[in-house]
């Protein structure tokens, strides 16, 4: 949780008087708040921690870090299925109400 993951800004908008962006982390796209690095532009890379850009980063080191984090399993941990992981680690059933949203399952089926 403590590591910040680099991502690329795809688009920027004002929401509730706050500068927000869609940011791509090697395929996973998340909403990110830009208030701490207000001069970010579309196409820039930033170090993002729990949905907040903290610092701009050059493209090459961003890509290298993303690759390393992928190998370390950090991306899975940041963006993956936390309840599923906790259930596996505990050797227990997934608690009720923590299933993946049905839409995603349906989408997957439609694709395959």
């Amino acid at each position: 949780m403590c590591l910040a993951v680099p991502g690329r800004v795809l688009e920027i908008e004002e929401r509730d008087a706050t500068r927000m962006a869609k940011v791509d982390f090697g395929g996973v796209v998340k909403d990110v708040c830009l208030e701490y690095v207000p001069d970010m532009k579309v196409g820039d890379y930033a170090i993002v921690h729990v949905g907040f850009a903290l610092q701009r980063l050059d493209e090459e080191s961003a890509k290298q870090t993303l690759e390393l984090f992928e190998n370390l399993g950090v991306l899975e941990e940041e963006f993956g299925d936390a309840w599923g992981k906790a259930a596996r680690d505990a050797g227990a059933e997934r608690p009720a109400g923590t299933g993946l949203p049905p839409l995603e399952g349906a989408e997957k089926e439609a694709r395959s």
Partner: protein
Amino acid sequence: MKYLDEFSDPVLAKRLFDDIRAVTTRPWSIMEVCGGQTHSIIRHGIDQLLPEEIELIHGPGCPVCVTPLEIIDKALEIASRPDVIFCSFGDMLRVPGSGRDLFKVKSEGADVRVVYSPLDALKIAQENPDRQVVFFGIGFETTAPPNAMTVYQAKKLGIANFSLLVSHVKVPPAIDAIMNSPDCRVQAFLAAGHVCTVMGMGEYPELAERHRVPIVVTGFEPLDILEGIRRAVRQLEAGQHTVENAYPRAVQAEGSPAARAMLSDVFEVTDRAWRGIGMIPQSGWRLSPKYREYDAEYRFSVTGIQTEESTVCRSGEVLQGLIKPHECAAFGKECTPRNPLGATMVSSEGACAAYYLYRRLETPDKEASSVG
């Protein structure tokens, strides 16, 4: 050299190892403060590739591990209330409180939700005006600014059903506490890079000077860590104790002024207990009086908590670098990721989990031959 081909640039890695070897003339102990660095070190076998004079001591830099038991118990109690939606980062789900964890509470029917960002919790509050939404605000200086901004937003947007259960901690006072311990063996620090991305390096020169200890701001990638070690060893060999930045692509001397301004508006510095370590003066944040109405501890007066810590677990010593995880008698026996006795075995950044995951089960001198 075993493992070397796992580095993103094996040639550069070899050069760094060779350089460290060439300058090392005596034994040195260097603490990497951050749990993310610990995992990178163990996974890539950096500790085993270094000259044997150099010992890496794993530090307390895992926020999940150091969150006090009392706060976990408060979280469990608040999460169990029927009117509450309790939001947390995923890595808190299995941190043991006194006898249960968030995973168990959820299985018993509580509304616990995993979010990616504190802003997601705020959104849940907007969508559920008839429920109380509580976000578990743990973490170091890297996580505190996002949580501070979320509280600021809640106030600005007038979202009254949102609150934060705060247990933020700060790294420099922990470094100070480690150096003040009579058992301390640390001779240099690799400071946590992303903490400095926010806070800058301003707090370190005084610490380096007072304890005569080199502090090198270091990133998480194996090559970054090697560069940090190389600079620390060079200083140690030369008898220096300055602050160096070995992570300039992410860290500027002044850090992030906007984030720091938000921190000092929303939070105030306070004494904080660290799980396994105890009270460290001025080592944490709580909401400042202006934002007290967003403090979950005030909103849900959770009192009369009786904590019950495992009597076996030695994670406090692990977190201070006094023992290595496999020196704990329970390691890999009663205590495994499936059945963790301490947070250091649960958290993906915990030292016990790193040792378990990468099979460092033997005593240090046997390690090199048995790990394949």
